[in-house]
């Protein structure tokens, strides 16, 4: 946390009253802590993106290319013809205001342009001005605005202040999806070389090395090997973790943070234990070593470019089907886009669990199974020996990650797993979970240090709900199935709710899983001794 960060008591003084000035007059100030740095020139060049240059949002002159208005106009027109969603969402909003206080950024900031309706109006006003008869004739009276540098700066500020979580879309009577609008606005800005560093860099890394962190193959192998060694120390069991193994039955793809960041790492240990214990014939891939896809936050084309690796690698290795790890936006891409973008996966087989015989009919064509689906099925068929009391030192709650819920519907599988491996599970209030879940506030490429204040604001509703179960049920860990969550919820909770940890569902599975040939296991996967928590360390088989 930087020195000049506002204290929580200051930050929560939120003024929800709208300003006097009409929203149609663009006014955006780039204040420290509430925006992201511009994409780096080298990465833009590496990805062959247009107009790479050195610039920063806080500078007056963004060095916009000549004729940038025309480029955006053409790009807008093209997308209006390619996406029914965009045209519909531009046309039918009635500004009923139902979405206004559904956005975590509005709740946390009070900035009226963080109401989804106004965020969309930023784009819609230009749409009216350029593409509708009423707007062309009546201009401002019809809600039309000319695209100016001021408007463009607003686009940048507010469309990189949306995490594409889709919560507003749940409440909208027409299902208008701000994520879709934000994606389109970001695509338009990309056309004139405007993007942010924390999207550009992971995307370039992923394109080159296969993962967002830019870890090269040997580094990838090192971290997996290291986890194997550590797991042996923790459990006494030496697991196998094959990489790039041809002819394995299953390819496993996880977000790269799982093998390089904490607390993700404990989830990785959980996967490794689980796969070993059931004897899964699987392989990791260094080439497709990223489940996440920051291309989703960039453009449909970039999403496709990065996602292509998963099927190509599955084909090269000759696997039968794919399992995907704990990740949020990864599952939006896998579930809603992958087959369309890079399918058909006709070289794979319809997934069938080798242990339970369950045919995963819900993945018949995509052929990729979510690990929660896979594990829930194993537990349901009693294939795992579990001792939930080994998680008794944790009083858990579960954060539904935006995308697996609102772009898939993964609700009961993780809950079933958690209830099978933990004894103390308490839900947060109902308006903050399941389809109404609140974003961590740092998704869609916004999880940077320079954007810290805005992240704390956006994460306020989530943290506030955690506070509630922390106060009422003494909850001390927030479980989630998303790599961005695991990276950004710890600082969020440290800021708003100190004393609550963040963990993954398969970390809990790992703790509870009784392995053949294990030694005493006096600690949990974090190395915390059980004695300290008032629990015997040797009560397992």
């Amino acid at each position, binding site marked *: 946390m930087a020195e000049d960060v506002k204290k929580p008591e200051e930050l929560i003084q939120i003024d929800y009253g709208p300003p006097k000035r009409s929203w149609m007059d663009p006014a955006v100030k780039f204040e420290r802590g509430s925006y992201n740095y511009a994409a780096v020139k080298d990465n833009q060049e590496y990805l062959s993106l247009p107009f790479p240059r050195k610039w920063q949002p806080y500078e007056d002159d963004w060095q916009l290319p000549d004729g940038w208005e025309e480029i955006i106009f053409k790009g807008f027109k093209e997308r209006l013809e390619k996406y*029914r*969603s965009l045209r519909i969402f531009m046309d039918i909003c009635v500004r009923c205001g139902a979405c206004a206080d559904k956005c975590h950024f509005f709740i946390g900031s009070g900035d009226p342009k963080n109401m989804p309706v106004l965020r969309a109006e930023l784009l819609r006003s230009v749409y009216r001005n350029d593409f509708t008869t009423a707007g062309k004739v009546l201009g401002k009276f019809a809600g039309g605005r000319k695209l100016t540098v001021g408007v463009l700066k607003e686009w940048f500020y507010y469309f990189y202040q949306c995490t594409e979580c889709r919560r507003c879309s749940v409440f909208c009577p027409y299902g208008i999806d701000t994520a879709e609008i934000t994606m389109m606005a970001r695509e338009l800005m990309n056309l004139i070389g405007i993007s942010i560093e924390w999207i550009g860099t992971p995307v370039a890394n992923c394109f080159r090395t296969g993962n967002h962190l830019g870890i090269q193959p040997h580094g990838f192998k090192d971290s997996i090997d290291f986890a194997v060694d550590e797991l042996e120390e923790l459990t006494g069991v030496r697991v196998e973790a094959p990489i*790039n193994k041809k002819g394995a039955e299953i390819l496993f793809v996880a977000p790269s943070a799982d093998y390089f960041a904490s607390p993700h790492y404990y989830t990785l240990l959980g996967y490794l234990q689980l796969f070993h214990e059931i004897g899964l014939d699987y392989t990791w891939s*260094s080439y497709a070593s990223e489940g996440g896809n920051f291309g989703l936050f960039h453009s449909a084309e970039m999403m496709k470019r990065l996602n292509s690796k998963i099927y190509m690698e599955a084909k090269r290795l000759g696997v039968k089907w794919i399992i995907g790890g704990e990740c949020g936006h990864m599952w939006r891409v896998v579930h809603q886009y992958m087959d369309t973008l890079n399918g058909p996966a006709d070289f794979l087989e319809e997934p069938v669990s080798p242990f339970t015989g369950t045919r995963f009919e819900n993945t018949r064509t995509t052929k990729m199974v979510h690990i929660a689906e896979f594990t829930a099925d194993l537990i349901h068929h009693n294939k795992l020996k579990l001792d939930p009391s080994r998680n008794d030192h944790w009083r858990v709650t579960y954060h539904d990650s935006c995308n697996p819920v609102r772009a898939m519907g993964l609700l009961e599988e993780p809950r079933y797993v958690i209830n099978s491996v933990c004894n103390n599970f308490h839900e947060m209030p109902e308006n903050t979970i399941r389809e109404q879940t609140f974003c961590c506030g740092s998704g869609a490429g916004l999880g940077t240090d320079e954007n810290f204040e805005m992240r704390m604001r956006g994460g306020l509703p989530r943290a506030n709900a955690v506070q509630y179960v922390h106060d009422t049920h003494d909850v001390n860990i927030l479980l989630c199935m998303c790599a961005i969550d695991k990276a950004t919820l710890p600082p969020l909770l440290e800021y708003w709710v100190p004393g609550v940890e963040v963990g993954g569902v398969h970390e809990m599975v790992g703790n509870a899983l009784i392995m053949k040939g294990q030694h005493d296991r006096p600690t949990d996967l974090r190395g915390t001794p059980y004695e300290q928590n008032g629990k015997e360390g040797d009560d397992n088989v």
Partner: protein
Amino acid sequence: MNLFFSLVVIAVLIALPWVLVGAAGLDYLFGVIVPYVALAVFVVGLLMRVLQWARLPVPFRTPTTCGQQKSLPWIKPSRLENPHSTLGVIGRMLLEVLFFRSLFRNTRSQLRDGSRLTYLADKWLWAGGLAFHWTFLIVVARHFRFFLEPVPWCVSVMEGLDSFFQIGLPIIYLTDVIIIAALTYLFFRRIVNPRLRYISLAGDYFPLLLLLGIAVSGVWMRYFDKTDIVGIKELSMGLVTLGPVVPEGIGVTFFIHLFLVSALLIYFPFSKLVHAGGVFFSPTRNLANNNRVKRHINPWDYPVKVHTYEEYEDEFRDVMKAAEMPLEKE
């Protein structure tokens, strides 16, 4: 400003027939030509809108899922909130269109005691919206008594129910009361709530005022002005049978009413009112969440520059070899 602009336009729309029919006697223009033109604009305009939406591609299948997916056989899927079949989608759309399902979820967030966020159910908008839309539908349907001879039994039954309480003379239609109450609520919430006032455009006030004008002028004719109903039916039957006549003695209120309706018809296809048709095309609602079961085709898909495994191995072969990782080419 936006409100003022809307009020001025409404005033002009009322003044036009008042002056031109009342004083200048342009009955035929306002009784026949304008309604015909308005209807034509409405039908053609809306049709063009809908056809434009219909021909646009849907590159990706992106429903917003609001319940449990269909996955393992022992987990109960939410068939309406997260439909996996066409039947489920139809159910979801019916709930949406007939009962405003999503709006029913509405909550109001509040920061209490300076630190505690709460989300209370807030059904007012849902109730007001639903009340307006349903009564509007019934009122429009009731008007078929003016366009059909003999009056169909269903219209009569509806009128019977609508005047169930038998209050007043002529008997007061419940829908007349509800529609004016609902529109008044929807209008005033935009003015009273600072957040809504901030986001409201002229295009938000205007249709509410227009609809209020239509409702009030209609009510005025029926209950106070006691307009010559036989004359009106003669005119309306003339319009539908394409033999328009304008009988003598129809009061100016009727022409105001008819002109505001014409204005609504003309305004409709070029405004946010097209949500009536657009909601059916919303890709987050009208698609089944069967993404991993059935492949969705993007009609404008094109090949992109990818980074192949061969290129990757070429770049990293040495380090991979040193790390004893399997290689395609030694």
